[in-house]
């Protein structure tokens, strides 16, 4: 028999099956290599009778659920387990910014069942009547007392719970210490000054007004959330002045930091951790002046077509065992004490993931007005087209 590259030979299939039985490869690897995973997924979708039998036992929540979330923010294995136990397949839509999520929900017809808004967007969703009040009796895995209130409060608006906490993190900067020349950066002042000096042509800022303008405001010691005209004018001056020295305005900064093209970038916790693990010379720094602290939530849009499946998925992801696997996969800190109890010591002691309290206290949560302020949006456009 000729070995056809597109298909798997009988012999190879048996080898893979034996490896799987021995436990030397994971079920995911086995299903992927043999093509059985794809085949059963396709058939499962086409023929409801082939769906895992467990689905029959429980209340039927339908055959799928659509989740709108951020890149690299889940463990795919968890979704497989969810499909096995409920029969519902999780379709993941990935987004680049909260504005984009809001724009899609405002336009209508998104089809999402669950989405992952950041703290400062939730009041806007409530005002726009786009978000469903949560029936907590359908989320038995949600135990408010287990969550750090700091990262749970924004989910409650006027006494009604609209969203339950997922993860939190910070926005600092990542710097390649090989190029710091002995004087380590620790502030936003240094970030912007050295961008216009020995880091010229090597700095990246986010393509995101909230953080890029916010961290320019911190240079002057203003609030990250300022919408005061005079303060924004100072920030604009700084941004325009720094622009010729920037390597790029982009939120996709990992490739350039890894290749060595960029030496300094605004950076979110998880990216900072991933860069630092692979390249220890890249440090993650929280600016002394402060900066952003954020928390993400699970919520259900008013327009969700499959609400039963939405509650089932959120409840599943709040299970501490499941959540611990999520954290190990994406690397963002969790506000859930029950989950933290299951995590290895080295994660909980990691200064990037769980910074010292005095560094955290300088940070600010983004505000709703910061996101929707038209002047900040126009300032960003002037900066990008300057």
């Amino acid at each position, binding site marked *: 028999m000729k070995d056809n590259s597109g298909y798997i030979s009988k012999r190879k299939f048996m080898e893979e099956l034996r490896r799987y039985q021995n436990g030397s490869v994971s079920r995911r690897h086995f299903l992927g290599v043999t093509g059985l995973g794809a085949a059963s997924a396709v058939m499962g979708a086409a023929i409801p009778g082939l769906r895992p039998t467990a689905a029959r036992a429980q209340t039927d929540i339908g055959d799928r659920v659509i989740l709108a979330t951020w890149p690299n923010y889940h463990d795919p294995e968890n979704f497989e387990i969810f499909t096995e136990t409920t029969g519902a397949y999780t379709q993941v839509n990935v987004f680049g910014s909260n*504005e*984009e999520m809001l*724009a899609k929900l405002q336009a209508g017809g998104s089809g999402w069942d669950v989405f992952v808004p950041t703290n400062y967007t939730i009041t*806007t969703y409530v005002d726009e009547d786009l978000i469903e009040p949560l029936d907590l009796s359908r989320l038995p895995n949600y135990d408010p007392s287990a969550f750090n209130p700091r990262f749970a409060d924004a989910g409650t608006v006027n006494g009604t719970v609209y969203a339950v906490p997922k993860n939190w993190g910070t926005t600092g900067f990542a710097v390649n210490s090989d190029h710091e020349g002995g004087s380590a950066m620790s502030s936003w002042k240094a970030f912007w000054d050295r961008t216009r000096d020995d880091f010229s042509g090597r700095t990246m800022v986010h393509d995101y*007004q909230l953080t890029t303008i916010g961290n320019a405001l911190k240079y002057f010691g203003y609030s990250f959330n300022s919408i005061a005209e005079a303060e924004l004018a100072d920030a604009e001056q700084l941004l325009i002045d720094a622009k010729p020295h920037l*390597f790029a*305005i982009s939120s996709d900064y990992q490739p*350039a930091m890894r290749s060595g093209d960029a030496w300094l970038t605004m950076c979110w916790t998880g990216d900072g951790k991933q860069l630092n693990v692979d390249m220890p010379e890249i440090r993650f720094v929280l600016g002394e002046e402060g900066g952003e602290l954020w928390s993400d939530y699970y919520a259900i849009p008013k327009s969700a077509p499959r609400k039963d499946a939405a509650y089932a998925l959120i409840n599943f992801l709040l299970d501490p065992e499941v959540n611990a696997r999520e954290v190990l996969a994406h690397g963002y800190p969790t506000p859930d004490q029950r989950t933290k109890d299951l995590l290895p010591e080295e994660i909980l002691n990691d200064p990037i993931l769980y910074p010292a309290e005095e560094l955290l206290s300088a940070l600010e949560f983004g505000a709703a007005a910061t996101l929707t302020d038209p002047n900040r949006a126009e300032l960003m456009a002037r900066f990008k*087209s*300057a």
Partner: protein
Amino acid sequence: MTRRERNWLLLAPAAAWFFIMLILPLSFVFVFSFGERGDAGGYVAAFTLEQYANLPARFAAFKNTLILAPLGTAAAMLIAYPLAYQLAVRTDPKWRLILLVLVIVPFWTSILIRSYAWIYILGGQGIPRLLESIGIDDVRLIYTPFAVLIGIVYGYLPLMVFPIYVALDRLDKRLLEASADLGARPMTTFFRITLPNSIPGIATGCMLVFILLMGEFLIPALLGGGKVFFVGNALVDLFLQSRNWAFGSAVAMTLIVVMLVTVTLYMRLIARLNTQRDSDVSLM
């Protein structure tokens, strides 16, 4: 059924398509452009010229587009012409089909993935690294207007090659022989016969590429590093970031008007060149 009725019936699907997919959405954009931005973004009905008065705020985006789009079109034309000429006039017909297919092959993969590949080719570990090894240091390619130009020419080259190829392929080769027999040198033959006869192909190719480039946003976003800002990028930001639908609609309407004007001027120019060519030919 009369012939007339039959004609209408045959046109009905296209007419319905253009009405639903073009006229209707465009009239929304037109109406929105006189409105205002809602407090949390979106659109609030109003009648104001404020959005149009605010257009100078996107002057740089229009300027960048109106410089780089013609430049990219011209560069693509200069590179595509010799290639199309080689394929249509010089290549042995038995190889022609294979070579033409090779020109299309890149279209089988998404432009997003191909542009992403250029990030690595133009990045520090790519071409600059090669140049360094032969002693040319500190070359910065990625995230510059030049990188955007390379991406544009790369992405749109096939669209330029094909119309020119078709024009040259249709060229009656006996004219070239006649020209040579009458003692014209190859260069004279090229400029008096080949080039004038391929003008319709060049015109079509340039128009195709130019119109698409005026609305381009992906290549500047990926290869310009957010620093090379086209009207397309301004529109993406206005609709997906600041959610200012009213101003976004005004910018979109303006882009359409700018395009109509430039394309009309361009077609006039081509029509004049064509009448000139026809009178030249009749003189011969």
